[in-house]
């Protein structure tokens, strides 16, 4: 469980990035933190594993205040995958890259070996085991970065902009992957601009603006509220746009994901044929 209590944070150059943020993320929850550039999303999540410490207020991770422990100790339970994989890849082979964190955490050599194989397999990277990470494509490098964090099996996973530079297919794989993490009871926090991706995943949505949380709740409520979204320069997801237009025909407005949309349309068709409705 991650608890933020009235967190304020200022960078050394006096820019106040967080102005009193309070949020509780329960174990096993799936949360998307959204907002414009400079809203403080990344700054906020960097507090979860202690990379940044609040200037005021506190962050409590599984009962421990982040100021009272080290990043390495927090990282053991909170995996953080950075936006740009090139900011972390440095090893000669993919295998060594994935083993890096495991060695840092002091796993035994045979456990390292086993976990590396497991992580490679999980993200379909086994064929690149001995390849240099610098020779891989952008999407593959992103997967290596993800594998290198998943390898130590953290309880919570924070993904900073996981969909940037990914094609639709990869996004779908990522979505299924998150669902799989969910079934294992893992906490997943994503920081993203990608409203379509959030709509498809339909997690709990936290909307930030200018260092504060401006809205919070289920995706169906927040991503279908044009006023709240407009303030954060977010456009309604496409499904929500269609349903906003269709609401004049007696269909609900707050629909964001495809499966729900399909159900509602089929049900509407049963109660009253579509040609009579429109």
């Amino acid at each position, binding site marked *: 469980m991650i608890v933020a209590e009235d967190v304020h944070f200022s960078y050394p150059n006096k820019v106040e990035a967080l102005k009193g943020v309070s949020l509780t993320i329960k174990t096993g929850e799936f949360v998307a933190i959204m907002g414009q550039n400079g809203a403080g999303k990344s700054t906020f999540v*960097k507090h979860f*594993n202690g*990379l940044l410490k609040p200037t005021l207020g506190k962050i409590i991770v599984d009962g421990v205040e982040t100021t009272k422990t*080290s*990043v*390495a100790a927090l*990282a*053991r339970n909170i*995996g*953080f995958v*950075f936006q*740009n994989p*090139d*900011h*972390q*890849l*440095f090893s000669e082979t993919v295998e060594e890259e994935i083993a*890096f*964190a495991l060695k*840092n*955490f002091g796993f035994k050599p045979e456990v390292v070996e086993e976990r590396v194989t497991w992580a490679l397999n999980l993200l379909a990277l086994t064929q690149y085991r001995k390849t240099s990470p*610098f020779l891989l494509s952008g999407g593959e490098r992103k997967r290596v970065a993800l594998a*290198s*964090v998943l390898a*130590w099996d953290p309880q919570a996973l924070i993904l900073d902009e996981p969909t940037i530079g990914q094609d639709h297919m990869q996004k779908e794989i990522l979505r299924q992957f998150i669902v799989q993490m969910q079934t294992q009871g893992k906490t997943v926090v994503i920081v993203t601009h990608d409203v379509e991706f959030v709509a498809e995943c339909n997690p709990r949505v936290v909307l930030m603006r200018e260092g504060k949380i401006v809205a919070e709740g289920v995706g169906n409520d927040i991503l279908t509220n044009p006023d709240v979204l407009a303030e954060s320069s977010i456009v309604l997801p496409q499904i929500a746009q269609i349903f906003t237009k269709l609401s004049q025909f007696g269909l609900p407005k707050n629909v964001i994901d495809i499966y729900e949309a399909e159900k509602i349309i089929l049900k509407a068709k049963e109660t009253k044929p579509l040609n009579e409705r429109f």
Partner: protein
Amino acid sequence: MSVFDGLRFRKVNSPIHNIDARVKFAYVIAIFVVAIIFYQIIPLLFLFFLQIPFVLLARVQRQWLRSLRGAAFLAAFIFIVNAGTDYFTSGYTLTAANVESAAGLTLRFVVLIESFSIFFLTTSPDHLGLALEESRVPYEFAFAFTTAVRFVPVLAEEAQTIMDAQKARGLELEKGSFLKKIRNYIPVLIPLIVSAIRRSLELAEAMESRAWGATKKRTNLYVLKLHKGDYALIAITIGILVGAVYVHFYVPIQTIVHLLQR
């Protein structure tokens, strides 16, 4: 990263900022030469204090102090190495004169950092490039130089992100012996170098697609011209040089130890 911060240009409107980069550079070189001529502590202290009015006039005292603080580690290193060498070569004794000479050499380094810091804090990379061009440095070199200067803060920021990313994977930079600590930086340096190279290739492509180097003779939007303040600094620079040479040849310089003993 505080050393870089102390060298980063910020736009301020001050008499020092408005001085021609070429003149300022000549001034920095003059200070450099004078600092090399003297190894005694008194003239170096004089040089150190001489530059404080410039800092105050340019209103960059805070950044300037930060650059000095960033250089403190290296300064301490220089002091220890010099004092240590004296200690070992003079039969395991350390006299006040030894300490003073080590302090003098350290102060020489501080003066160099101080003057370079003033130069970089008050000179925009654009002016610097223009000054280089006007001094007949080929445009390619001038451009490469200004780009390098401009990318320092970008790289510093990137280094911070990379450190964060590796810390999130359990890397503890401060852990272990001295050698281990140096080795800890490999996972930071490799991504930094790789991304710098990637960035430079991208920059080269972007520039070429905007017709960089299409004509041999480029024209400039701004042309440098010397003003009153520039001539004043030229006079000061010449004054410092002449004064330094005179003092060096005709004035016997006392050490502080000597003065105290009298």
